[in-house]
């Protein structure tokens, strides 16, 4: 059996991050958002983590526990990464995920983009999924703004369009 935190440390390495990044708030936030998106259909790295809505977007307690384990077992995780790789079938999704994570749009760079994108996606597919498409889009963007007043409404609109382009949202 391969424990989840080993696979997650491999994902971190593939995304160009180090285990030590998890010591920082920004690193943990990136970890949460990248796993959230990795599990979505276009990328296909489903590991079964469940998320709930937090001020910085979708958040998983279980994933947070895994981050702690990665830090505690840093050397074992590093050894696992040296000796293992993702299956070739997963690589395509992984490359797409790297491209997605590197999007800089409307003044939102890297982590800020991921945070807004994950929040919009979570609201769209979760608590507001019952609404009709037009109302849903307005409510999703409004709720995202309410959660994150420091991001401009126009920026949320642009990120929303980006999610549509990536077929993460079918509006």
């Amino acid at each position: 059996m391969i424990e989840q935190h080993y696979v997650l440390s491999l994902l971190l390495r593939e995304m160009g991050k180090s285990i030590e990044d998890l010591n920082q708030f920004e690193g943990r936030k990136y970890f949460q958002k990248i796993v959230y998106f990795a599990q979505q259909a276009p990328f296909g790295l489903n590991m079964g983590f469940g998320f709930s809505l937090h001020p910085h977007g979708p958040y998983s307690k279980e994933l947070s526990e895994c981050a702690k384990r990665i830090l505690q077992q840093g050397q074992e995780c590093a050894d696992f990464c040296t000796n293992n790789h993702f299956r070739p079938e997963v690589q395509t999704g992984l490359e797409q995920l790297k491209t997605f994570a590197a999007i800089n749009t409307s003044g939102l760079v890297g982590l800020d983009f991921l945070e807004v994108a994950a929040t919009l996606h979570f609201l769209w597919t979760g608590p507001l999924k019952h609404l009709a498409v037009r109302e849903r889009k307005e409510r999703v963007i409004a709720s995202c703004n309410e959660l994150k007043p420091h991001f401009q409404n126009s920026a949320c609109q642009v990120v929303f369009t980006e999610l549509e382009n990536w077929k993460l949202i079918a509006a």
Partner: protein
Amino acid sequence: MRATATSNDLEYGGGRIYESLHGFIHLTKVEKEIIDSPYFQRLRQVKQLGLAHLVFPGGEHTRFSHSLGVLWVIDRISRHLQFDPNTRQILRLAALLHDIGHFPLSHTIEEAYSIEEKAAKANLSKKLVGSTPNGEMTIPSAQESTPGLSSADAALHERMSQYIIEHTDMPLGITNILKKHDFEPNIIGSIVVGSSDQMLFNQLMHSDIDADQMDYLIRDATSLGIGYGRFDIEFLIECFTVPKDGNNILCIKEKGIHTVDHYLLAKYFYYVQILHHRTRWIIEAAAQQLYLNIVRNGSADQIPAFSSLTKWAGDPLKWISFDDAHVMSVFRQTETAGTLPTEIGCLFDIVLRRKIPICVYEQTVNCQRNDPAGHLALEACRKAMESAAPDSGTDLSATGVKLHQCHPRKPFRPVKNLEDRLRESEHSDKDELIKSDRDVIRICDKKAKSIELVDQNAASLASTLGNIETHVFRAYKIKPS
């Protein structure tokens, strides 16, 4: 949708029901229809505390009465906070339905399925890593680990409840009833798993001081006839407030600080004295292991495999028969059929005939977090526990039940302190955590100008208790026949 003040009342019209703890509860039509549905009536056959009645004879109360009780508590809070009738109704429905997907024997069977879910997740990870000799591999789909269930970060029974709320659109199904009365199932389901876009709703149903816990602490204490678990619920609710400029979050007025302490201590003693009672623990562990064996040995016609849980939940005929009596009957039939390995036999003795293993070692240790001396004491206890554990053959190890119990990772905590919260959650700093975390208990001053976490308030015992962990070490062996 915003919680707003109004003097309008709910339109009842669904009759009333006398509930043993809270008295008469007046019902609306949609609530009456839900209560009369087979899905809700099933809860009469699911005991709130699983097999605890084998230790505490009074533990016969069910998820049915608890669900009604949570409705009463949330309504009492909603009236106090002057929510409009629509908001009240939505919260009442979420309360009524929060346990609609609970498993037979409550958390005992839930834990067995959670173990299966973990195994399914580990299997997903395995599929992602390594080489593929023949080049053929199916990338795991989003549904593979939890078929049909949402990916909310919530307990399995909560996700099952959400599933039943949102996916039973057939006559007498919960979704069907909600839609008929113009309520959106997804809104109710999101509150049940604590993922509503309205933080206040999540807090009232899914936080460290929510309606669910406020009911079960008092209900369990009353039914069991014990003192642990009681607190002043009326005064606590009177101290609930939502400051106008406070980001629409729930706070407790400063004058209620000792009531909050009482609630936290009640919860702490309840966990230590009831949920982790030494005899209850071994009975539940045995039942859980027995159930896992039956699930894994393929009794798909009698009980659902993890992968077919939602299929069962979506079939009213199957789901309503999936209750405590059914599981106990499956245990008896399995023993008679002799289909499980012989070493499992002692588990039948524990669960069906109450032959309780002897606890040969037990030590409870309270220590300060991050205190080196405390951790040395814990290590000494662990060694003593392991050396007290009997040899295989006379113990439970062959059955898969752990012959010892300790909580190195999950000690009992009366309350988490700010540092732990910050370490464990996704907040950039203390201010943000205080402003926006779902789970924490906030105290505000008279004019609601200053808001802080309960463990930061010097007047609260939580400021000291937040540093304490309780660890329990136990070893058992089977009684000689």
